């Protein structure tokens, strides 16, 4: 059972301009490396963050790629 505060964003989606799933996948590796480097990934890839907010599947894959690549960084 969904909670209301979770349900409304899922039904209405992000308000800003967003990429589609295919464009998100194409840009995901660059976006993640920019995030890890501390660069402004959202400025470099406009619309990707909004897509991650609206698409649970792409969001999960972003989280996994970020965790995997971050885990390889020298501590």
């Amino acid at each position: 059972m969904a909670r209301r505060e979770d349900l409304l964003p899922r039904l209405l989606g992000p308000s800003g301009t967003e990429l589609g799933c295919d464009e998100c996948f194409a840009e995901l590796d660059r976006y993640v490396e920019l995030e890890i480097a501390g660069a402004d990934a959202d400025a470099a890839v406009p619309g990707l963050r909004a897509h991650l907010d609206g698409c649970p599947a792409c969001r999960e894959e972003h989280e996994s790629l970020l965790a995997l690549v971050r885990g390889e960084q020298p501590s």
Partner: protein
Amino acid sequence: MDVVPQPPAASVAPLDPESRRWLRELRADGGARDAAVARLHALLLRAARFEVGRRRATLPYLRGNDLDDIALQAADDALVSVLARLDDFRGASRFTTWAYKFALLEAAVKLRRRAWQGREIPLEPESWPLVAGGGPTLGKEVAQTELLAAIREGIAAALTPHQRRVLVALALNGVPIDVLAERLGSTRGALYKTLHDARRKLRGHLADAGFGTTILEEE
């Protein structure tokens, strides 16, 4: 709200030495290529196992062998995808980061589909009346109830039947988009476009009903 059809062109950086080596060896002939393909498969398998490991708690009925089979299938499929798309790699990231995403995608899709194997896909808003309140104040509760009523009306009146089925399945009933794509013979990209269009119509319906942008963004 718009879905951008194409992202801005990425600035293509010179390839780092390791990425150059991957491309050179994967495009070579004979033993050098075979060795590079084997290294690439091992790398993809590691990524697929990483994804399986992150999700194994959601699949308690699968045994270790089943999970390893899924990881291996995901690595095999990702290898085919990566090798077929080598010319698409432009050096916007390291080669390994670029390759990892194919393995993570393949593993995630297979695990989502396995989790929904044999389950009926709910396409009707059957869970709508069961939406739980989150304990807001009374005033907010009333506002949310009115908003939810307007959303329900918008879903019924403003959307096409296909948009309604997709929105209800994905956003209301929590069906993973890959699972729905498989059942409907569609693709993730096409279904997300439908979801996006449905959300835009729904927002328009709510605006027409007097719900301002501020209210919607607060939710």
